């Protein structure tokens, strides 16, 4: 069998000064090794389609001891974890546990609904979930004036990144939300609703809503390049008719039996009782893998497939834009550069 001839050598691709600069910038963060942690089984709101309240993890008995959490973080550090994601159900309700995590692990992010401010001393990136304008939020999340309250809580806070989750029903609303966030000089990125296992409700995307979302994302990225943390390749990867697993073969343990290297080796998703289950371990457990277009998943899934993107300068630039975006969204202090690739690139097949 003859290996396919490579049109470009990797050394030729990174000979371009802009590509090389970006490559050197992002590769400094290849040391990041993540795991995720459900912090509490409590939440101050109840959203339709919530990932936390799907599956079994919601029934775990929460460990509320800061000392146990400190011990967990220390053991995580020992096994090589360098980045923690504190999620489910609402980490802002247990700031003392978040503080313990930060004291041991200096790099991380917290996923929150933003209704209760997280103390500034916890210097993680703060991801504030937005599911539409306030009218839609009231209908889906049963909480009034969400965006105004979220922005007020995190005004002038450099940790804050708003995460707008596109559903088929809130695509048009994204423009008004992004404008409000940009007017306050805050940052926003995009997520795609990805159905929890068994969910077949109205929030599921179809081919028409994927296309419409792609157009909306593209328009917003063009209009607000300083405030929207995204790239053309993010748009392609997250609105493709195929989900992330089909496109890139998900490396999280739930879909990857190998324990030799990478996420299959190191990633764990801890429940509130500080237990984890390899069969359920991914960044958003209980998501239907076939429908997964989640932003957190893509950050690992697309990034991990560097080799297959190193085929030509355009494709590699698109991948670099994706990784640059992922780092800007997740890592405190990381500044996103201008996107290198200004057009849509077809995701390459497996190398």
């Amino acid at each position, binding site marked *: 069998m003859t290996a396919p001839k*490579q049109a470009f050598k990797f050394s030729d691709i990174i000979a371009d000064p802009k590509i090389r600069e970006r490559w050197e910038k992002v590769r400094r963060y290849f040391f990041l090794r993540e795991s995720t942690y459900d912090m509490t089984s409590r939440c101050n709101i109840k959203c339709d389609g919530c990932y936390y309240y799907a599956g079994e993890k919601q029934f775990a008995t929460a460990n509320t001891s800061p000392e146990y959490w400190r011990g967990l973080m220390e053991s995580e550090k020992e096994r090589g974890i360098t980045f923690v994601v504190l999620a489910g159900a609402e980490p802002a309700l247990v700031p003392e546990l978040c503080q313990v995590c930060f004291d041991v692990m200096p790099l991380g992010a917290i996923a929150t609904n933003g209704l209760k401010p997280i103390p500034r001393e916890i210097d993680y990136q703060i991801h504030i979930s937005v599911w539409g304008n306030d009218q839609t939020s009231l209908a889906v999340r049963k909480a009034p004036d969400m965006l105004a309250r979220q922005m007020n809580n995190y005004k002038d806070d450099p940790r804050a990144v708003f995460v707008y989750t596109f559903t088929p029903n809130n695509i048009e609303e994204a423009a008004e939300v992004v404008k409000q966030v940009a007017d306050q000089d805050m940052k926003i990125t995009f997520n795609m609703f990805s159905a929890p296992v068994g969910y077949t409700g109205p929030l599921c995307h179809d081919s028409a809503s994927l296309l419409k979302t792609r157009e909306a994302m593209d328009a917003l990225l063009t209009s607000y390049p300083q405030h929207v943390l995204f790239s053309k390749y993010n748009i392609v990867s997250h609105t493709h008719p195929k989900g992330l697993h089909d496109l890139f073969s998900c490396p999280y343990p739930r879909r990857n039996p190998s324990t030799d*290297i990478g996420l299959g080796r190191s990633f764990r998703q801890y429940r509130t009782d500080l237990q984890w289950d390899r069969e359920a371990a991914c960044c958003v457990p209980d998501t239907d893998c076939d429908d997964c277009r989640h932003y957190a998943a893509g950050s690992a899934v697309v990034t991990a497939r560097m080799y297959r993107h190193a085929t030509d300068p355009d494709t590699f630039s698109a991948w670099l834009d994706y990784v640059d975006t992922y780092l800007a969204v997740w890592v405190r202090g990381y500044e996103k550069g201008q996107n290198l690739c200004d057009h849509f690139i077809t995701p390459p097949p497996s190398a």
Partner: protein
Amino acid sequence: MSTDIQQTIQRIAEIIIDELKLEDVTPETFDPDLDLVDEVGIDSMDLATVALVLRDEYGIRIDEDDYPRLTTVKIIAEYIIEKQSENE
């Protein structure tokens, strides 16, 4: 070991040292049987970077699915030689 594989091992060690900026080791002293993940501490992104440089150097494609078994410099050298023979 044949001269071919010895040379390949040394060149791979050189690439790994350069790319990953390893200190306290030289291509000559790099143990080819050292486990790259457990004992050197490299991860999947490091390995993908090394794989790209090896692709340039040896004109072979390294399948992403093969990464997990490329655990030592010696195994990588044998893999490269096998791939090259397939291409001949």
